[in-house]
């Protein structure tokens, strides 16, 4: 059985960079656009890397900044200074 993790965030300016960064680091992830929101799901694991985000944004980015735009998640969370990971082990 497939075991999907997911993250959903508000469809705003920040989200564009987040989607780009996630797609780059998780080429298998599926991006779904719904009114006012973007939902991204992937099999078992999804990672957001600070480094990739900083590259996209062209500025420093604190992993906890994502708390402002995120709407929902599914999966176990592993967060530290460099990444935010959702996974089913």
């Amino acid at each position, binding site marked *: 059985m497939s075991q*999907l993790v997911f993250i959903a965030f508000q469809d705003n300016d920040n989200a564009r960079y987040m989607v780009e960064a996630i797609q780059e680091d998780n080429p298998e992830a599926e991006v779904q656009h719904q009114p006012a929101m973007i939902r991204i799901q992937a099999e078992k694991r999804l990672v957001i890397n600070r480094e990739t985000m900083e590259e996209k944004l062209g500025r420093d980015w604190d992993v906890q900044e994502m708390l402002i735009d995120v709407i929902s*998640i599914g999966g176990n969370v592993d967060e530290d200074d460099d990444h935010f990971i959702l996974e089913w082990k």
Partner: protein
Amino acid sequence: MAVKNKKLNLKDKYQYLTRDMAWEPSYQKKEDIFPDEQFEGIKITDWSQWEDPFRLTMDAYWKYQAEKEKKLYAIFDAFAQNNGHQNISDARYVNALKLFLTGVSPLEHAAYQGYAKVGRQFSGAGARVACQMQAIDELRHSQTQQHAMSHYNKHFNGLHDAAYMHDRVWFLSVPKSFFDDARSAGPFEFLTAISFSFEYVLTNLLFVPFMSGAAYNGDMATVTFGFSAQSDEARHMTLGLEVIKFILEQHEDNVPIVQRWIDKWFWRGFRLLSLVSMMMDYMLPNKVMSWAEAWEVYYEQNGGALFKDLERYGIRPPKYQDVANDAKHHLSHQLWTTFYQYSQATNFHTWIPEKEEMDWMSEKYPETFDKYYRPRYEYLAKEAAAGRRFYNNTLPQLCQVCQVPTLFTEMGAPTKLSHRQLVHEGERYHFCSEACCDLFKDEPEKYVQAWLPVHQIYQGNCEGADVETVVQKYYHINIGEDNFEYVGSPDHKHWLSIKGQKPADQSKDAA
């Protein structure tokens, strides 16, 4: 060599600012300080194993919350200044907000009280900090929802006395009793009920597809408070999952207790969300996703992944999930046809879905809508056209546990009413389902005390025995303004005038 002032990493910072602020008591016994930690039978051997995945410290918390509030209130201002209510898809939509403000926002406040309470009851510092932050979040949700909807209250009926109605109106006893059940449980059951079963497993169905639907119907204020609240929810959900894993890892004796709570609270939450099914399918004029589709994504798929993950602790999916999965094809239709009949006693309006909406439902519910539900609407529409808009004047039989009228059907038998009864200490009790009946058997002492609105009316505790008196005096529902059919209501007429159209009946008079 110059030593660079090293910045603490997230883990250390969290450790210093949370755990290291706690202390071991020296002159009072721990059991006396945290007297509610043990009576539920949950065994905690080592609180230091508690993990906080978000590691949010108070300074970061205030910083991010302030930023969220600034964004949110800028949008509320813009919405009000630009008369945003005039740009919604259709005024029928506002009825979903009336249900939200009376049914959901008071639960946010109840959640605030609940978390403030359990935030005092755990001896583990990590759990206390997480609960305290969540208490503040939930207070914020209750307040921002009231602020957002205060604009609608200036222009539409039925939004004027939400907290008062929540404590009295018959269908609002469904959400109210849900949270009262949780808040009157012990601290571990409360977290299993609200943080895990409700927030992690079920609230996505309300706050994600419904809020997306609000955006699709032009309601900038609601989608913004919805998503702003939901941004806190990622933390709450994580707490919910962490709580469960923590309890299960602490002691194997905890497993059957937690399983029973998961079974109970999945079912309680599912029954509560039947109100949301109707909001999604019937109260959003522009449709995004059907209840059945939302259930498939957010419960069957995401919940499936979750319960697969929990297998290793000896936890199985909730006992009654098959009934809930089967009900996705029927739920919203059964709810709406019931509310349609009882609109004389609600603070919102109901209506017969328009032709395009019924076609949408046929498409989304190919197995059930045309066969079971469309004919009912066609009949009701014919009656209404003949001047006999149907209102049911017999008060419904309520379920002793979930307090929803016994309106559901049996799994696999959509024309057979689901009803159970049992006699407990000489009194007969009625239930909407096998599941609710089982919950009663587990805790009869609790559920015999249920405040059932219909019983209360018949016992004379609601200011009168006839519906009109109860509705007007006891519920504070303004008769002829807040209640009855949407078509021809003051809200409907007001909407037509906003849109520069005359109400149908008046143009007829003019002609």
